[in-house]
């Protein structure tokens, strides 16, 4: 009897605990709220049947304003827009799955310049040029930045409507720099010198913070370093991992490692933000979409001490800054069963002037004239970076090649493999991937 009583008590407790944790877990992953989003005109032809439009877009402070505006403004009468929370990695996986069959789970997908060539060349998303021509005046689409349109184009056609761009920006502790008579570094050597000075001062052991997590973060960092030298992963489809630019990039990144947390290859952007919030780093380079968080005093008592600058170049002879320009936009899957005209008007409304204005300062909208030097604390740095970043290349093999070389890149940066052997391994893997693509 006693055994049964205890078992019953234990199981009751289990059920209560499971319910409580279930409730909290559901709360953590509830649908994206669009209640306080900006309302804009979304004037499409109403379908006669009840229609659900499924939207795939990862959650971040820079993307959410556009997604929420679209969900709020275009949901009416027979049409419901549905957007479930998801992270970037989940979006990448679901994009591949939804675009693969004759029918898919999503009708509008968020995508970015790096991915567009691969899915556009496969015929998985539709060209938008005809719709742009038809609705250019209605949604003032001519104000979308030409360079950002180009970043989302493939083979001369536009495949995604640009909403916003991200570029690397350097955040630094203005109080620490001022106390030590330092200025924002212009090269990697300057960064190292500044880091040495800060470390000698005694409070900050690892002054430099970069997102080098062994995922897309680390390959983006490597690509940004290569871009600073004027080279990229692929040049006209040919892998460049055994080039001088690749060597410079790897040597440059390795030279920064002693001044970064020893576990930096597990740090994603939120962890780098956390280093800045905690005051355990004095300078960090991340995508601009992460910078607004640093300006909020609800996130850190150091918020007022953060200042922003364009990132350095890899050296004084480098033609470009250590940066990547990543352009996000909306695309329409070829396999959607819904009216594509209706879908285009939805995405066009989400990048309207009002929606773009409301996204500042969290985002850097594609619509020209929205971001001025006064828009945010990091607007000057973002504008300067945009002008000094190597133009984004478009190649269908970029994404698979990046996935293929990443494990070797991590081995090089963690010191398990020397640079020369790593360059040769990455070159071989990239050539095999290009050949099989």
């Amino acid at each position, binding site marked *: 009897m006693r055994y049964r009583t205890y*078992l019953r008590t234990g199981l009751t407790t*289990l059920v209560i605990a499971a319910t409580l*944790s279930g409730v909290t877990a559901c709360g953590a992953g509830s649908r994206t709220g669009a209640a306080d989003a900006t309302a804009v005109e979304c004037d499409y032809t109403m379908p006669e049947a009840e229609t659900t439009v499924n939207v795939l877009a990862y959650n971040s402070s820079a993307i959410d304003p556009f997604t929420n505006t679209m969900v709020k403004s275009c949901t009416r009468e027979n049409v419901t827009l549905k957007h479930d929370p998801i992270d970037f990695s989940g979006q990448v996986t679901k994009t591949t799955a939804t675009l693969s069959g*004759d029918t898919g789970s999503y009708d509008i997908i968020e995508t970015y310049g790096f991915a567009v060539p691969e899915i556009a060349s496969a015929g998985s998303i539709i060209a938008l040029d005809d719709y742009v021509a038809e609705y250019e005046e209605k949604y003032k689409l001519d104000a979308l930045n030409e360079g950002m349109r180009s970043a989302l184009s493939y083979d001369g056609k536009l495949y995604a409507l640009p909403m916003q761009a991200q570029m690397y920006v350097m955040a630094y502790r203005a109080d620490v720099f001022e106390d030590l008579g330092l200025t924002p570094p212009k090269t990697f050597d300057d960064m190292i010198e500044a880091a040495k000075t800060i470390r000698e001062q005694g409070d900050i052991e690892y002054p430099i913070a970069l997102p080098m997590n*062994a995922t897309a973060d680390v390959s983006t960092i490597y690509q940004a370093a290569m871009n600073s030298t004027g080279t990229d992963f692929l040049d006209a489809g040919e892998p460049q991992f055994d080039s001088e630019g690749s060597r410079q990039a790897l040597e440059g990144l390795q030279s920064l490692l002693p001044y970064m947390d*020893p*576990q930096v290859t597990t740090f994603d952007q939120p962890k780098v933000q956390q280093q800045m919030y905690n005051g355990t780093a004095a300078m960090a380079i991340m995508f601009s979409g992460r910078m607004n968080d640093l300006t909020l005093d609800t996130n850190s008592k150091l918020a007022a001490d953060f200042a922003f600058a364009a990132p350095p170049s890899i050296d004084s002879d480098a033609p470009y800054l250590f940066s990547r320009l990543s352009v996000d936009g909306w695309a329409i899957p070829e396999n959607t069963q819904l009216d594509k005209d209706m879908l285009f008007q939805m995405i066009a409304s989400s990048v309207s002037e009002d929606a773009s204005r409301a996204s500042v300062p969290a985002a850097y909208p594609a619509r020209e004239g929205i971001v001025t030097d006064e828009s945010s604390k990091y607007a000057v740095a973002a504008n300067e970076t945009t002008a000094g970043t190597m133009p984004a290349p478009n190649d269908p093999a970029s*994404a698979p090649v990046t996935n293929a070389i990443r494990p070797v890149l991590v081995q090089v940066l963690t010191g*398990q493999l020397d640079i020369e052997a790593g360059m040769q391994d990455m070159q071989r893997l990239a050539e095999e991937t290009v050949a099989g693509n």
Partner: protein
Amino acid sequence: MRRREFAVLIGPSLLVMVGLLVLPLVRTIQWSFQEVTYGQVGTFVGLSNYSQALTDPRFGRAVFFTLLLTIVVTSIILVIGYLIAVGVNGLGALRPYILGSMLVAYVLPGVVGAVSFSWLFDSNFGGVLNLAIERLTGREFLWFTDTWPNRAMIIAHTVWHLLPFSVLMILAGLQGVPKELREAATIDGASAWKMHLYVIIPTMRGIIGFVCLITIMDVLRTFDSLIPLSPQADAIGNESIMYYVFDNAFRDGSQQLGLGSAVNVLSILLILICLFPFIRDLLKEAKTKA
């Protein structure tokens, strides 16, 4: 029971099992011999996926790590689970509260528990345990990038997560040991140690076998906890078999579903080999009781 009643009662379960277990298993075996991408009909490639997996040193490391984790975690859980169950069994009114608080670790969603656990070792988020261990040992540990400290953290998390279930099961077993047996052993002068070793443990062999079975199955399927606990699992040799499958078959838009299926078939064989002694014992016991 009439045949018709039997069919009506068993039918829904049978339908669900065929739909959710048998069909996916058949499809997995089929795909393991094919090159498959989303939405496309597979192309037969013979044993190519199997040879690719079996000649990949990374897969070998994943198998080694998974087996190591399984053996260490199962051993710790059996010993500590038994000791805690004995302790809890001796408690009075506090017993349900202690049990209830322990079960929180078991019912928490895997990733949520793993993220919280990782923060105990992450100085960016307080890292209370990391700080305490550093103070005690005077050494700095790289919990996320050094192989063995990372393994220790993963083992600690897996034990923390699975231990409550084992304690509950073993406690139930302890309650089922006949009082007369204990009294007889006491009259015969058995010490506490001998009482446990020769009377209690043999009496609840079935329960211990069941705990082993469930723990081994759970640990062999370790996957989601590694995402926060071991962000560069592959690079430091702490990748589990399931993580290897995810990384190859799905991650970052990868579409090696054939390779993933082949590794899954190999995993099923590995699980069956690991569980064979326990399944055999359970069947024997069931047969004896029947």
